[in-house]
């Protein structure tokens, strides 16, 4: 029975990774249309670099991801700290407000923002993209940081205060260093979320603020080309590396490491 389970599990792992592995491999296939392997090539990657639309999309994606990362991480961390330390009236309402964005389908979040922006006459562009990204990112930062804070417990901060540290000093000299790896992890994850986001971005991006996933969608709709493979492969590898680093950072920080959901 154990062996069956183990075989099944490894097969599942293969099921999960094989398609992406194939994608990466075929991004080096010199055949344009067929799935027949006709030789190794970097051509498709090269054509990406020459494609100014791709470069523009990459630039947009990176800019938004970076700005989002900075803002969401700071704002989310501060909120997590406030909720960890104090009791709030209408606690359930606030927690609901923070967790709901993660739970409802992204489609609905993207659409509602689209409606808001159009009713208030804000033109779609990098700003609306950034606003949307921050909105779905803050809850993630909150969740990760507050878990780490609860893990830390209250004794450390109390000890610092007992020894003469004011709340400010306590936060900067004790709390922040102790939870720092979780903060970095959430920053990385938010960066990744932004980079990879398609559904919400699709609805709130303007004509001149295409992100990479939106561009890929357009490419797929226009027809299957090997350049898509190359682009997708790059995104897969980048995301995987970033997420692995983030998870390792979270593990390093915490005693009771649980992958969150």
């Amino acid at each position, binding site marked *: 029975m154990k062996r069956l389970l183990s075989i099944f599990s490894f097969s599942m792992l293969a099921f999960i990774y094989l398609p992406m592995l194939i994608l990466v491999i075929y991004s080096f296939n010199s055949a344009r249309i067929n799935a027949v392997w006709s030789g190794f090539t970097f051509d498709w990657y090269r054509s990406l670099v020459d494609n100014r639309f791709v470069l523009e999309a990459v630039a947009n994606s990176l800019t938004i991801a970076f700005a989002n990362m900075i803002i969401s991480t700071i704002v989310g961390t501060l909120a997590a700290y406030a909720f960890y330390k104090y009791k709030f009236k209408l606690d359930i309402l606030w927690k609901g407000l923070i967790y709901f964005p993660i739970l409802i389908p992204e489609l609905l979040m993207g659409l509602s923002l689209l409606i808001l922006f159009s009713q208030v006459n804000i033109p779609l562009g990098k700003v609306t993209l950034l606003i949307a990204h921050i909105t779905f990112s803050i809850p993630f930062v909150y969740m990760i940081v507050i878990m780490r804070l609860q893990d830390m417990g209250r004794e450390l901060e*109390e000890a610092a205060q007992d*020894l003469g540290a*004011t709340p400010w000093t306590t936060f900067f000299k004790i709390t922040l260093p102790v939870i720092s790896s979780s903060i970095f992890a959430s920053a990385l994850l938010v960066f990744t979320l932004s980079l990879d986001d398609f559904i919400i971005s699709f609805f709130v991006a303007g004509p001149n603020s295409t992100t990479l996933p939106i561009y890929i969608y357009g490419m797929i709709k226009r027809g299957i080309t090997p350049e898509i493979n190359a682009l997708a492969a790059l995104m897969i590898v980048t995301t995987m590396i970033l997420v692995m680093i983030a998870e390792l950072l979270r593990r390093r920080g915490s005693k009771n490491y649980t992958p969150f959901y």
Partner: protein
Amino acid sequence: METMIRVENIAKGYDNEQIIHPLTLSVYEGEFLTLLGPSGCGKTTLLRMIAGFEEPDSGEIFLAEKPVKDKPPYQRDVNMVFQQYALFPHMNVEQNILFGLQMKKVSKDEQQLRLREVLEYTQLKDFCKRMPTQLSGGQQQRVAIARAIINRPKVLLLDEPLGALDYQLRKSLQLELKNLQRKLKITFIYVTHDQEEALVMSDRIVIMNKGRIEQIGTPETVYNTPKSLFTAKFIGENNIFRQGERVFCVRPENVHISIADGIEGKSATIRDVVFTGNYHKIYMLAEGETTPILTYDYGNQTKWAAKQQVVISWLPESEVTLIE
């Protein structure tokens, strides 16, 4: 003797539950005072209120005659040793210990002087550069103590500091702490649920139950003359008797047991003889009763055995009348 801490009519409640009913307590300078009681009796809450981590709903707290109720922890001249030590994981032993002095902006020379002193007291000289995760439980505990006493606080608060350690370590650290307190002459307020620990270490014990003080006294007083039924049952082992309206107790060591051959006393049968190492516990059932009476037989060998018929007696002075 000067009063170091005075707690007047302090009360605390949460969500319709009264954790501490209004109580008043004085702690004298240089004494080792223990707050003793079962879980939930309020002893830790009381300690935390003195430290400044909980705000009392009413009443006032005086430290060296000055009111401190509204002062935050970092402005009170008390220091605490936490139950789980709360060592800062990102700092080594030396940095942990010096933290309080750095907060007070004590000069570097003075810091080093006091550091050396405190390392002597706690035998941590070789561990300065180690990180907390590289230390054993007992060592972490010493660091926590060093970190607190280096500040020369007026009062040291200890929240069940020995709870996480094994028996032998706990026993030796109990004596170490007691000696440390005598040497430093700092007032200690110690919280524990272990009555044996309280008896060994304290100058005075405050027995708490359900948010109230049951009794305050020296270990001898509290042991030999408990005031209430709760205290009689909580401290050591005791035999409780009821006679009409009167409830009284007799300590097992004051119960005499002899062979049944015409001596005056209660007749009983031995139910169990239990070996505990350096003495035996003898449980006896008097005729018609269901609660066993306990006595001790010292020495690691005993002539008593189950089913023997015996006669129990005790001196009238051994009886302590209790309030319920």
